[in-house]
C-alpha cells in the first residue's frame, strides 16, 4: 500500500497530471464503482456549510482549498500541504499576513479555470452563508467581525486582497493565529466558483476541482459521483487521482442491515459504527476486511450550563463522578475500540494528559479508576437538584441507544428522573446545538477537524462558539469561562510549542473543574470494507480515502 503511494508520489512529481491510459498512479486498478452506504444522507451539498463527518469525508475528494491535509496514512496526514496554492506560505508581519500564490492550470468540473476572484469570493461566501466555522476558524481575518455582524454585505474589506496577474491572494489577520494554515486547509475553506449563490445550495451540486464531481443527489436515496473530466492531477499527496470511475453513496439502511450488506458484498463500505452485537461475528469471520485505526475523536455528554439542573456546577460534577467510563467503552465495543477518557482532550494532545479530577480512589498517576456513585449522590443532594426531571437526547443508532440507556440508568441512580429521547442522527446533532430546543444533556461524539487540542477545547467550549437559537452552536453546553478563554486565545496565538502545550493544559484543568461536559472515552475507528476493496488508505482526519481505494 505504502509502496503504491510512494510510486504515486514519484509519478506525480515527475509528470504531474500525466498518466498512462487506463491507469491511476501507475496502477492498472482503474475503473469500477465504489458502493458506499449510510443510514441517512449528510444533508446539504454545500461544502461551506455541511459539517457532518459523512460529507466532510466525501468532500475531501471533491473540492480543494488553497491548502489541504495530505491523503496519506499516519500522522503525516495531519500536516498541511499546498493544494490549490503552489506552496505553503511563511508567516509575515508576526503571523498577521499570509501570502498565497494560486496554482496555474486548475479547472472546475464545468471547465472554467480557478482564479483569484474565485478565492476571494469563496472566503466572502463563507461568511455570507453562515458557515459553522466562520467565526471560530476565520474570525481573525480583518473585516470578519463586520462580516459576522452583517453577512449579506460581507466584503472582508482589508482582510483579503488578490492580484490576478501574480495570482497572489493575501490574507491580513487582526491577530496572529498559530493554526491559520490548518484552518485554511479545512474543507469549509474550499474554493468554489465566484458565481456560486450566496446561500445554502441544498441539493444542487457546486462544480468541483477534485477527481470526482456530483452528478445526482436525492437525499432520501442516493448520491452519485463520477469522474471530473476537467481534473488533471497536480499533487498526488494533496489530491490524487481516483481509481474508481464512479462512487455510489446509498442511504436508508440501518447499521445492522449495512453490516450484512457489506458482508455479502452488496456494498463496499459502510459509514455507521459497527453494531456492538455484530463485532464478535465480524472479528471472527471478516478479520481481513476490518481495519482498526487511530482517531482524533471522543464521546462526551455536553450539559447545558444555562438550564436546570446542569446550571449548577455541583450537578455537572456529580455526573462526571457517576459515569462509569469503562462500562461505556464496553457498550461501544470493548477495549480494542475505546479507552476511558477523563479530559476534554484525547490523550494524544496536550491537555489530554491532565490528572482526572473525577475518579474513585484518586492516585498520583492521575488516572481514572472508576465511578464514585456515593460522592455523585452527595453532590446531587448538595446541589438541591435531586428529583428534577432530565431528558437525555441520543441518536437513534444502536450504539447510541445502548450507551444512552446506561447513562439514563446512571442519572437515575444519582437522583434524577430521566427520559431518553432518541432522534434520527441527521436531526440529533443540530437539535442538541439549538438553545430553542432546551436540551439539558445529550450524548454525542466529536471528531477533530484537524490535529489540535483547540478542536476540542476551543471548538466545543469556546465563548465565540455559543450562538443562541442556532443549529450551528457547537458549544452545546453554552459554556463561557473568560479565564479559560484567554488561555485558549494565548495558546492559539503562540508558536512556542512547549508554552502552547502548557496553556492548553491550564485551560483543560479549568474546564474540567467547571465540568460543562462529561468526557467518556476516546475511540479507535473500525472500518469494514467488502472483500473486493483494495488499496485501503486511511487518513487521520477524513478516514478512508475514497479516491485511493480500488475495486477491480
Amino acid at each position, binding site marked *: 500500500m505504502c509502496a503504491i503511494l510512494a510510486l504515486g508520489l514519484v509519478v506525480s512529481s515527475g509528470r504531474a497530471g500525466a498518466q498512462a491510459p487506463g491507469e491511476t498512479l501507475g496502477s492498472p486498478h482503474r475503473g469500477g464503482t465504489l458502493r458506499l452506504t449510510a443510514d441517512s444522507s449528510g444533508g446539504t451539498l454545500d461544502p461551506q456549510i455541511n459539517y457532518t463527518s459523512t460529507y466532510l469525508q466525501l468532500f475531501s475528494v471533491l473540492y480543494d482549498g488553497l491548502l489541504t491535509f495530505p491523503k496519506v496514512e499516519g500522522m503525516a496526514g495531519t500536516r498541511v500541504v499546498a493544494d490549490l496554492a503552489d506552496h505553503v506560505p511563511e508567516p509575515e508581519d508576526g503571523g498577521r499576513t499570509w501570502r498565497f500564490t494560486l496554482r496555474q492550470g486548475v479547472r472546475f468540473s464545468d471547465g472554467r479555470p480557478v482564479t483569484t476572484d474565485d478565492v476571494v469570493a469563496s472566503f466572502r461566501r463563507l461568511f455570507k452563508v453562515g458557515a459553522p466555522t466562520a467565526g471560530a476558524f476565520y474570525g481573525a481575518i480583518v473585516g470578519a467581525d463586520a462580516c459576522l455582524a452583517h453577512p449579506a454585505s460581507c466584503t472582508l474589506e482589508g482582510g483579503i486582497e488578490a492580484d490576478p496577474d501574480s495570482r497572489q491572494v493575501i490574507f491580513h489577520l487582526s491577530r496572529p493565529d498559530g493554526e491559520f494554515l490548518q484552518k485554511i486547509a479545512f474543507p469549509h475553506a474550499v474554493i468554489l466558483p465566484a458565481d456560486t449563490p450566496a446561500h445554502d445550495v441544498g441539493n444542487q451540486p457546486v462544480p468541483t476541482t477534485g477527481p470526482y464531481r456530483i452528478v445526482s443527489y436525492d437525499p432520501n436515496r442516493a448520491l452519485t459521483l463520477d469522474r471530473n473530466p476537467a481534473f488533471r492531477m497536480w499533487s498526488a499527496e494533496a489530491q490524487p487521482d481516483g481509481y474508481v470511475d464512479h462512487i455510489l453513496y446509498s442511504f436508508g439502511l440501518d447499521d445492522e442491515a449495512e453490516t450484512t450488506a457489506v458482508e455479502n458484498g452488496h456494498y463496499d463500505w459502510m459509514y455507521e459504527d459497527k*453494531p456492538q452485537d455484530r463485532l464478535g461475528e465480524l472479528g471472527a469471520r471478516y478479520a481481513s476486511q476490518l481495519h482498526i485505526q487511530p482517531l482524533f475523536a471522543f464521546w462526551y455528554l455536553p450539559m447545558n450550563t444555562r438550564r436546570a439542573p446542569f446550571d449548577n456546577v455541583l450537578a455537572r460534577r456529580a455526573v462526571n463522578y457517576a459515569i462509569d467510563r469503562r462500562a461505556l467503552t*464496553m457498550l461501544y465495543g470493548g477495549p480494542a475500540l475505546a479507552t476511558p477518557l477523563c479530559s476534554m482532550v484525547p490523550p494524544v494532545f496536550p491537555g489530554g494528559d491532565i490528572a482526572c479530577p473525577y475518579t474513585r480512589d484518586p492516585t498520583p498517576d492521575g488516572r481514572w479508576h472508576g465511578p464514585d456513585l456515593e460522592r455523585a449522590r452527595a453532590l446531587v443532594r448538595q446541589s438541591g437538584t435531586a428529583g428534577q426531571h432530565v431528558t437525555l437526547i441520543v441518536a437513534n443508532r444502536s450504539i447510541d441507544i445502548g450507551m444512552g440507556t446506561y447513562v439514563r440508568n446512571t442519572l437515575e441512580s444519582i437522583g434524577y428522573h430521566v427520559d431518553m429521547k432518541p432522534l434520527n442522527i441527521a436531526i440529533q446533532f443540530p437539535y442538541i446545538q439549538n438553545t430553542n430546543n432546551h436540551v439539558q444533556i445529550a450524548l454525542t461524539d466529536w471528531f477533530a477537524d484537524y490535529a489540535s487540542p483547540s478542536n476540542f477545547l476551543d471548538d466545543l467550549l469556546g465563548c465565540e462558539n455559543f450562538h443562541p437559537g442556532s443549529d450551528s452552536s457547537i458549544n452545546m453546553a453554552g459554556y463561557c469561562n473568560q479565564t479559560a478563554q484567554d488561555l485558549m486565545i494565548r495558546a492559539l496565538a503562540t508558536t512556542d510549542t512547549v508554552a502552547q502545550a502548557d496553556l492548553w493544559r491550564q485551560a483543560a484543568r479549568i474546564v474540567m473543574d467547571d465540568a460543562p461536559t462529561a468526557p467518556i472515552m476516546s475511540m479507535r475507528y473500525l472500518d469494514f470494507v467488502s472483500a473486493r476493496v483494495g488499496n485501503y488508505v486511511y487518513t487521520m482526519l477524513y478516514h478512508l480515502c475514497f479516491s485511493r481505494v480500488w475495486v477491480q
Partner: protein
Amino acid sequence: MRSSSSLPPGPWAVAIRALARDRASLVSVGVLALMVLASLMAPLYARYVSRTDPFLSNVAGQVQIDGRAVDIMQPNDNPLHLGLSPIGPTGRGAYLLGADSQGRDVAARLLYGGRNSLLIASAAALLCVVMAGVVGIVAGFFGGVVDAVLSRIMDIMWAVPVYLFAISLSIVMVSQGLTIGPFTITSDNLLIPIVIIAIVYVPYAARPIRGRVMALRNSEFVLAARGLGVPSARILLRDILPNVTGTIVVLAPLLTALALLTESALSFLSIGVQAPAASWGTIIQDGEGLIYTRPLVAVAPGLAIVIVVLALNVLGDGLRDALDVRETSRRGH
C-alpha cells in the same frame, strides 16, 4: 312452592360445571395462574435469588458462579478482540437465563416484564369490554339514529388496521402524554398503553354485543316488560345486561390475548411500555440486537407470550362452549 334444593341449577352454575369438566380449560387456567404467580414473585426473585436490580445497567458487573467472580460482559473470541457479549444462561439462581446487552438479569426482567404485560393486557381487555358493552348495548337497544351514529363510528374505527391505529395513537400519547381536563398522564404511565389498546379493540367487541342486544330487544320478555311500562334503564339493567354477560365473558379472554399481543408489538416498537420499565415486548426488543449471540433474550419473552396467548384462547373456547345455551342444551339432554 317447591323447595330451593329442587330448583334446576342456574346458567352460571351449569357453565362452571361444564368448564370444570373441560380438561383443556383447566390446564389453561392453571398455566395462567402459574404465569401470574411467577410474575408476582418478581421482586422476591430479584432480591433474594438474582440479587440484582433488573432495571439498572450492570455492564461492568460480575456474577458469582461456583465461588468465582465472572464478568457479566464476556470478551468475544476473535483475533481482533472486538466486542463483548453478555453472559449466557448460568443455569443457577443469578442470571438463570443470562444477561441482556445492558448486563441485566434476563430472568428477573422476564418476571417483571410479565407483571406489566399481564396487567396491561387484562386491564385493557376489561376497559375494552366495559366500553364495548356500553356502546353495543346502547346501539343495539335504542336502534335508530343512536345505532346509526355509533355503528358508523365503529365502522370507521374498524376500517383502520388495528396496529396502524394503535401505533398512531401511541406515537401521539407516548411523545406528549395524555391530558384530560385537569388530569395529566405522563408518557411512561402504564395507563397510556391500557387506554390505547382498549380503544382500538372496542369495535371488535361492540359488534357481537350489539347483535346479541338487537336479538334480545325483540324477545318476548323484553316486549312484555315494555308493554307493562317498565322504564328502559330498568329493562337494560335487569333484562338485557344479564343476557349479554355471557357474550362479554366469552370475549374477555380473547380480548386479553389480543391486548397482550398488541402491547408486545407496541413495546417492541418503543411506543408501549417505556424504559426503564419492562414488558415482554421491550425485552424482545432488547434481545433483537443479541439474536445472533444470545437468542434466549428474545426467545424467552416470545415463548411467554405464546404460552399465555395459547392458554387464553383455549380458555376462551372453553368459556364459549360452557356459556353457549345451545351447546349446554345439547350436553344436558
